[in-house]
Structures are given as structure tokens and as C-alpha cells.
């Protein structure tokens, strides 16, 4: 008896819809990802206000200062003093002047003194930080040469 040898067909799943969906997901995440808030520190709990709107045009250069408290997982303050968060470092507000002076010097070398003076110092401060500490920081900024300051707030209303 003659046995027919049929070629075994390779089972192939149709990947096209899955790849389509993956591309759509990538497009979605690319659009909604905010790469502008890279200098924002998650430890700072900004106060909220309905009038806080992002500027119409993004600033060419800005110095962002994150001021907040060291808190545990439950949000309880570990230290009553406010700190400036500079990457992994935590610096007391009253000790921040040399850093601010260095920032100004770097900007001056990069873009000239006039541009450095026009650079906005954006303050992202926790809602519980005493205003005196923010004023202290602003005063330091003015003394080293900065002229423009902006206070950040979260858009919307405070919860509770």
C-alpha cells in the first residue's frame, strides 16, 4: 500500500492585531507622558488652587527648587524642619545659598549675566512649609542675582 506523505503545515498565529494594539498603546503613552516635569520631586505635596494654570509657553530656562518635609510612608513628618530636595540630597533652607550661587554662576557662564538674571526660579513648596522659609529662599535668590520667581501650585481644589 502506498502511504501519502503530506507536508506538515506550520501553525502560525496572526500577530497583526496584537502588534496594532501594541503600537496604539505606545502612541497613547507617548502622548500622555509628561517629560516636562522631570525636575518635580514626588516628596513635595503642593497646595492646590483652581487658578493655577501651566504657563502658555514653556520657559526656556528655569531653576526649580523643591522644598518639603521628610515624611514616612504614612505621610507623618520625620523632622519638623523643611528641606530643599536636590536629587538624593536634602539641604536645610538656610544652607542652600552656596548652591543657589553656583546655579547662578553656571547660568551666567552658559548664557551671560543678563539671561541668568532673567531666569525664573520656580519654587515647588509643600503646603505646610512655613512661608518665612520660602521668603528666606527668595531673599537668597535675589542676593545671588536672580530677579524672577514663581510659586507652583497643583491645578484643582484641595482634597479635604
Amino acid at each position: 500500500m502506498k502511504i501519502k506523505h503530506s507536508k506538515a503545515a506550520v501553525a502560525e498565529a496572526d500577530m497583526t492585531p496584537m502588534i496594532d494594539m501594541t503600537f496604539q498603546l505606545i502612541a497613547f503613552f507617548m502622548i500622555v507622558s509628561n517629560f516636562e516635569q522631570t525636575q518635580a520631586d514626588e516628596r513635595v505635596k503642593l497646595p492646590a488652587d483652581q487658578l493655577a494654570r501651566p504657563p502658555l509657553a514653556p520657559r526656556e530656562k528655569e531653576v526649580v527648587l523643591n522644598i518639603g518635609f521628610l515624611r514616612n510612608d504614612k505621610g507623618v513628618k520625620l523632622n519638623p524642619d523643611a528641606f530643599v530636595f536636590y536629587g538624593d540630597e536634602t539641604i536645610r533652607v538656610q544652607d542652600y545659598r552656596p548652591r543657589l550661587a553656583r546655579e547662578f554662576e553656571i547660568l551666567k557662564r552658559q548664557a551671560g549675566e543678563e539671561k541668568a538674571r532673567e531666569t525664573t526660579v520656580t519654587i515647588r513648596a509643600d503646603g505646610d512649609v512655613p512661608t518665612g522659609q520660602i521668603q528666606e529662599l527668595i531673599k537668597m535668590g535675589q542676593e545671588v542675582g536672580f530677579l524672577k520667581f514663581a510659586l507652583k501650585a497643583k491645578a484643582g481644589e484641595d482634597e479635604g
Partner: protein
Amino acid sequence: MRFQRRTVSEPLSLKLVSAIDIVFLLLIFFLLSFRIRAEEGDFPVNLPMSQCFIQPGPDGAIHVFLASHPDGRLKSLHLGERDLGDQVPDCFERLNQEIAAIVGQGAFTDELHAEIHTDEELAYRHVVKAISACRGTVLHGRPIAYLEDVRLVPSP
């Protein structure tokens, strides 16, 4: 002449495996870096040096005084001589209405500016509320500007 028999050509297919790998890596990157964050906005403020407090500003200054308890809570809110209370957020709404009335009266709104005098201990969130109350309001989702020039002055 002997011709070689043509071999059956296999269907041409692109090797998509590596492309799909990259696509998945991109997807994982965006998934991990994705954070749901509320939009942030600015309040540009004019911040006179401390000596400006000693020499009061020119005419057109609306003085707002914020006093604080030692723990940072709001103790009192005054618009000039007028006491607006200490109940948050009602006192800031009152301030907003008073500013609206002042701005509504005068023809020289460009010359008007607010000077916010605060105690050092006062929690920053109250200052943000006071700045916002001076700067304007939101009506039916549209912001309405009252005073563009808001200055922050420390209490002596």
C-alpha cells in the same frame, strides 16, 4: 543542454521578531515611566526686598495681612483694616469678593497691586490661597483676572 530544475521558492517573509521585541521594550518603558500627576501651574509673584516694607509702595497698593498661629494655622486675615475672619476657605472667598469689588470700581486697575504681608510661621498653602484670591477667580471654567501684580512682603 541540461537545465536545472527550478526549486520551489519559499514565500518571502520579513523577520519581525526583533522589531516586535523593540516595540514591547518601548511599551514597558512607557508603562513604567507613566505617572498620573495633576497639572501644575504658576503664580508669578513680585517679591520686593525686605527694605521695601519700610518704604511703603506707591499708591494703589491693596494691603492684605495674614497672621499665623505658631503651628502655621491661619489666625486672621485682614484686608487693610477690615477683618475677614479666620475660617478657611470662607475668609479667602470673602477676600476674593472684596478684591473683585475694588477692581470693579476703579478705572485704574493697571496701577493697582496687592501686597500680601505674612507671618513667617504661616503655612505656605494659605499664602497660595491669598495670592489666588487677589489674582482672580474662575467663572464657568474660565479664569477672570483681577490683579496681575501681587507682591509678597514679609511681616517685620
